[in-house]
């Protein structure tokens, strides 16, 4: 049974400190280069208090807003994928030895991250990556090690960005599962309703001696989160979507969107669920050492569909179609849910301002 507590700002600071004391590297939101990104934090002072984001297709601005609490920025360009499924990772190294070669063990141990400020859509994205990277016969050891050691502090959204559509994807804005602790900002973001999700979360809460939350705090929290859902302006109609998109393979809209799409790959790399990687082998000039690296890839690159003789998807149209139909149709068959959680990153961070919700709608027309 979840338990509910009342936290003020010093209590939140105490939580970050306690997690660090337990050996976690705390990662949370902070301001950098005109955006709120996720990076290491050491106290509440690092959080983006007083900042709010303005988001539209192809546009993001971080503005001063004195009324904004530390979590009112909603979401920014980075996702937790960067910490759990890193952009570049060395798979192994090998050294030449007496005419043969020796594989060198990867000695670095997996980092222990405590993620602070994980939104409901992002929890859903982590659950999706769990299914992809751990849920099959083949598990990804890099992801698995980081995932196992993880502590998650979720934050329920009390504001939505104009690009959010988690409500229609049924992933948010309220965090239901997948967290150790969840916080809901109340009282204009100066206080939090704390909720336990796991024994690990309950243990931390007990240790810190938080007082129990009064009932009116719980109803206020529930209402502000519902209001954030109501404020969402974008949506994707899930009913019959996979079938409709599968049937729309030759729809003229693909041509229209291909005129705008630059195949730059930003959407896939910003997306918290896209998992695709490429592998590159390197060797030193003297040939004494070789390494194999894994890097985030995108179905928008030409090399992505390269097989003997050439690339299968030569046109941008076919690549955009791959992306959208994988996210909203084939993912369902592959992994049992859509591959989109409605975070809106691909909309905001597309330099051409292409809006996936608008494309999905047009493809059903």
């Amino acid at each position, binding site marked *: 049974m979840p338990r509910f507590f009342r936290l003020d700002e010093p209590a939140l600071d105490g939580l970050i400190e306690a997690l660090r004391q337990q050996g976690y590297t705390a990662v949370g939101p902070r301001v950098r280069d005109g*955006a709120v990104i996720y990076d290491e934090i050491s106290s509440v002072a690092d959080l983006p208090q007083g900042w709010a984001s303005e988001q539209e297709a192809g546009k993001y*601005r971080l503005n001063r807003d004195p009324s904004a609490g530390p979590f009112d920025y909603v979401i920014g360009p980075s996702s937790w994928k*960067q910490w759990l499924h890193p952009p570049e990772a060395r798979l192994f190294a090998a050294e030449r030895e007496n005419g043969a070669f020796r594989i060198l063990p990867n000695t670095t141990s997996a980092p222990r991250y405590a993620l602070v400020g994980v939104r409901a859509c992002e929890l859903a994205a982590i659950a999706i990556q769990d299914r992809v990277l751990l849920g099959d016969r083949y598990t990804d050891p890099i992801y698995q090690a980081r995932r196992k050691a993880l502590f998650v502090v979720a934050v329920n959204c009390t504001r939505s960005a104009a690009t959010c559509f988690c409500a229609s994807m049924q992933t948010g804005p309220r965090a239901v599962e997948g967290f150790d602790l969840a916080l809901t900002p109340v009282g204009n973001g100066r206080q939090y309703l704390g909720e336990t999700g796991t024994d690990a979360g309950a243990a931390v809460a007990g240790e810190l001696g938080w007082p129990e939350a009064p009932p009116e705090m719980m109803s206020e929290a529930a209402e502000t989160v519902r209001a954030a859902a109501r404020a969402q302006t974008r949506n994707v109609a899930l009913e019959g979507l996979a079938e409709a998109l599968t049937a729309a393979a030759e729809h003229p809209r693909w041509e229209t969107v291909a*005129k705008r799409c630059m*195949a730059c790959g930003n959407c896939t790399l910003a997306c918290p669920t896209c998992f695709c990687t490429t592998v590159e082998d*390197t*060797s030193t*000039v003297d040939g004494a050492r070789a390494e194999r690296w894994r890097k985030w890839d995108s179905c928008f690159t030409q090399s992505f569909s390269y097989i003997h003789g050439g690339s299968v998807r030569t046109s941008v149209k076919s690549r955009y179609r791959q992306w959208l139909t994988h996210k909203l149709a084939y993912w369902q068959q592959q992994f049992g849910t859509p591959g989109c959680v409605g975070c809106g990153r691909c909309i905001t961070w597309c*330099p051409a*301002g292409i809006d996936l919700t608008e494309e999905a709608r047009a493809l059903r027309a």
Partner: protein
Amino acid sequence: MRSKSQARPKVGVFKFASCDGCQLSLLDAEDELLAVARAIDIAYFPEASSIMKKGPYDIGLVEGSVTTHHDAERIQHIRRQCRTLITIGACATAGGIQALRNWAEVDEFVRAVYASPQFISTLKTSTSIAEHVPVDFELRGCPISKHQLLEVISATLAGRKPNVPTYSVCMECKRRGNVCTMVAHGTPCLGPVTQAGCGALCPAYNRGCYGCFGPMESPNTASLSQQFRVLGQSSGDITRAFRGFNAWAWPFRQASGEGHRS
């Protein structure tokens, strides 16, 4: 796989119209320079050594663009001398910044710049090496990335394909965790239409990409130009953005308004 008994590949480094910056990337590879010198026979590299061995060469690295009659003949000769010919840098692969002359009257420049213009003999255009002879591999950039140069050398020696991706700068930008300058600041950036290789250097310092690695594999310059207009750029701004180090590369040339004078 290379064996000890095999001779080290003989490499020549040749210069055309350029600033020498790309050749210097090789000398700049401090940590690896000794290994490079052991692994290859630098037979001809006037910038670095006064020993100049005659061809033929296994690998020719060509820097610079063709801007004179003499150079147009010399590249034919060099091509015949090199089994593998690799062009390095924006000048050699696209004509370089000096290709801006292709939109102007070279004779006017010559009269304005030189005290005795009668001694100047030059072509009206600056063109890439590939417009003159077949090229086996291109390394982009102004200057090239020393990592890519070492990668091509290491890959050639190991008999494997070099990792020189042709996708956009955005791929490296997002992997690096940069905040997109175009989306977050409204700064025009050529990253989406420019080939990766620099590691998204300019956006990492909050500058838009200048396109020094030239057009990526499928450059949608029309869409990017449209986005530049949304950001308040004029047609003149857009022309200037594309007329940089790779102005004469066809997709950028076209996007800059082919035929327009600068």
